[in-house]
Structures are given as structure tokens and as C-alpha cells.
């Protein structure tokens, strides 16, 4: 096989990411206002408040989504919030359940009292609207098939008026559905999203329809700094930074080559 330019580019990126991940260096990042706002919102909730955590993502974005979700769940459990997990995308179900169980274990949180995982409901718009009328009618059982009323945490919950808000962990535009349809019930919406989705949510954040947003690996790393717990976000930031700088270098090299070629042909 004849090696072409793109093969060298691929190899360079692979080596760079591999080396930076292996180096284990952690970067000390300044905290952005967006991330600080999320931290302040959660800190401002009284202990014992119920927060819905919706895992609205696919498995493909897990390397970026998991650090965000884990940092936010850790803060939630640390702040003694009671967390109710659910998923509006089927693939988010198993991931959300595992993440909640793993994080709860770190804080000795008890299933049924401190946290519950309700599972997946098809047709996200209908599920959001239905929960606004009755959470119990939408999820008569939790993910493991336990009846709603057998879970101490769920028993007093009727609809959105009994929860402090929803935290949507999303890799697409699912959070907008929480804003658009949950907004009808004055549900407060928080978001943990991939970096590529930031501009989608900026208008909702600016208008106050969304309370706070943590985005991308950088957001996760910043949040880990705020809660004083190192994690995958900080670890991934060095690899992401090196990949970004590599792309910037390639952009500059490509454009220099383009202008030199243009001058030569002119």
C-alpha cells in the first residue's frame, strides 16, 4: 500500500492522542461562567431536593458525555440531592443506570431512598408531557420492575411541581424538548451536553429558558475542579487540547500550501 498524506495525518493524530493520554498530565483549568452557573444552581438547592436526571444520549458519545454526567452526579449526591434517573433514548438507559449506581456507591447512597432509576419511555415528547401530568402514570414501575409506590423516594412525587428541575445529559437536541414541553409546566432545565451542541442551546440559556449548562470535556474538567474531584474530564482535556492544536497546525499548513501554490500558478 502506498502511503498518502492523509495516512500520515491519521498516524500523527493517533500518536499524539495516545502519548498525551499515557502521559497522565492534568491541566489546571480556569472555570467558565457557564460551568460556575451550574455549580451555583445545584449548590443553591436545599438538601433533599429531588432532581430528575435524564440520559438523552447514545452510546457513541460516551467518552465525552460520561465525564460530564459523572461530575454532575457526584455533586448531586455530595450535596444530598435525591436523584431520579430516566432515559428518553434507549441507549441512555443502561449507561444511565450504571453511572447512577457507580456514583451512588461512592457516596453510600441507598437505592429507593436517595436515588431511583425509572428507565426508558418511547416517544420523548409524549413522555415529557405525560410526566408533567403524572410521573407515576408515566413510570408505574422503575427500571428493575419495582412498583412506584414501593419506592420511598417516588411515593410523594406527583408531577414536575414536586421536583427542583431536570438535568438533561444529551449529545443531540433532546434538551430542547425539555425546554419546549417541560417549560409548559415551569420545569427548570439544566443541561450537560457535548461541545458540538453548545451553540444550539445558547439562545435558551441567554433567554433564561434553560438555567445552566456544562458542555464538553472542558466543562467536565472545570466541574471536577469545582467539586475538588479529579476525573475523566481532566484526563481527557490534555488529549483534546493536543488534538485541537494538531488540527490548528494542519489548518495553517494547508492554507500556507494553498497560498504558495496559488502564487506559483499566478
Amino acid at each position, binding site marked *: 500500500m502506498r502511503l498518502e498524506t492523509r495516512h500520515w495525518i491519521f498516524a500523527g493524530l493517533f500518536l499524539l492522542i495516545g502519548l498525551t493520554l499515557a502521559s497522565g498530565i492534568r491541566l489546571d483549568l480556569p472555570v467558565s461562567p457557564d460551568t460556575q452557573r451550574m455549580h451555583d444552581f445545584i449548590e443553591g438547592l436545599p438538601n433533599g431536593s429531588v432532581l430528575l436526571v435524564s440520559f438523552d444520549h447514545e*452510546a457513541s458519545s460516551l467518552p465525552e458525555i460520561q465525564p460530564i454526567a459523572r461530575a454532575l452526579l457526584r455533586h448531586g449526591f455530595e450535596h444530598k440531592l435525591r436523584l431520579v434517573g430516566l432515559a428518553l433514548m434507549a441507549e441512555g438507559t443502561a449507561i444511565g443506570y450504571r453511572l447512577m449506581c457507580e456514583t451512588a456507591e461512592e457516596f453510600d447512597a441507598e437505592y429507593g431512598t436517595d436515588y431511583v432509576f425509572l428507565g426508558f419511555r418511547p416517544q420523548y415528547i409524549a413522555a415529557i408531557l405525560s410526566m408533567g401530568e403524572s410521573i407515576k402514570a408515566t413510570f408505574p414501575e422503575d427500571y428493575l420492575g419495582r412498583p412506584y409506590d414501593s419506592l420511598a423516594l417516588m411515593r410523594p412525587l406527583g408531577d414536575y411541581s414536586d421536583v427542583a428541575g431536570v438535568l438533561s445529559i444529551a449529545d443531540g437536541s433532546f434538551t430542547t424538548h425539555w425546554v419546549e414541553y417541560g417549560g409548559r409546566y415551569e420545569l427548570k432545565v439544566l443541561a450537560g451536553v457535548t461541545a458540538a451542541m453548545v451553540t444550539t442551546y445558547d439562545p435558551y440559556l441567554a433567554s433564561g429558558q434553560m438555567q445552566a449548562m456544562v458542555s464538553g470535556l472542558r466543562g467536565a474538567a472545570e466541574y471536577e475542579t469545582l467539586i475538588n474531584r479529579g476525573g475523566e474530564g481532566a484526563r481527557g482535556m490534555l488529549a483534546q487540547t493536543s488534538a485541537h*492544536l494538531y488540527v490548528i497546525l494542519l489548518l495553517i499548513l494547508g492554507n500556507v500550501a494553498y497560498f504558495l501554490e496559488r502564487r506559483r500558478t499566478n
Partner: protein
Amino acid sequence: MDRKIAVVVCFAFGVVMFAQYFSAHPLARSVNQTIADYWQIIFAFALIVGVVGFLSNNLQRVHKGQDRPFRLLALAGFVIMPVLAMIWGIKAGTPFLWVFENVQVPLQSTVFALLAFFVASASFRGFRARSVPAAILLSAALIILISRSFATGPLSDWLPGVAEWIRNNPSMAARRAILIGIGLGSLTTSLRVILGIERTWLGGGK
């Protein structure tokens, strides 16, 4: 006649859902709950259509010998996952979750991660400042890329501010214009469907 029934049903549900949105009356909330429940049930049946389609498509191709190993693998996954869930359940530590975590997640993440390599290659070969708009786009991309990285020294002082400005002004203006356009488009299309002017959703041409 059957088309007329569909149009009347669509009109009735459209008007009811529109009207109940503005009411907090228990009846309106009950109607909303019931329709949302049926919506989910109908959607679940739509999933069955997808499942049947997946099965018949793959079985036919296996029979014809097209991509047989891949199709058989897909069918095996289709059968194995529900069987694992039914026998051992879906709790943490079960084979179902193990397969999901160790097969599906890495496979999907791998395919998604390939994007990074294509982006790197495309940034070298395709993203050129051929015109003033392209140069502006390129500059904005560079600033946003650096702002999402770890910048030190003098860069860290002014770069976040510039990146915020790009997000909060040109980017947000464009996004809001798109959102308003989508909103108006959805509104007019919904009205056309509810009033029976738009009937292409019924199928069957004119």
C-alpha cells in the same frame, strides 16, 4: 371516504390538543395525559414495524447470499440481547449489561471517534481561506477551537472573551434566526395539516 375520516380525526385531535394547552382544568389535564399515553403506545407499535422490517430485510439478504456474515452477526445480536435480558435480567453485573458495555459501546464510540481523523484530514486538505467569508469562518473556527483547549499565557487573558463574543453575537443571532424560521415553518405546516390543506402525510399522491 377513508381519507376523509383521517382528516377529520387529525382536525379533531389538533384542535383538542391546541385548546387543552391553554387550560389548567382537570379535564384538560386528563385529556393531555390520556393522549400522551396513547401516543407512547402507538410509538411502541411503530417500533414493531421497525423490528419486522429489520428482520425481513436481513433474512432476505442472507437467503440471497448478500453480505451473509455481517447480516448473520446482526441477526445474532438481535436474538442474543433479548435472550440475555430475559434469562439474567438487566441489573448491573448481568451478561446483558456486560455485552452492552463491552461490545455495543466500544463499537459505537470507535465509529464516532473516526470523525476526529476525518476532521484532521479535512482541515489540511479542504478548509481554505479562498474568500473573505471563508477567511472569517476559518478565523472564528480557530478562536473557538483554541478556547475549548487549554490556553496559557497572554492567550488565556483575551481569548475566552473573544470566543464568548462570537458565541453570544454572530453565532446566537444566526441560531435565533434559524429557530424562529423553524418555529414559523412548524406553525404553518401544523395549521395546514390540521385544517386538511396539507394531505401528503396520508400518502397516495394527490
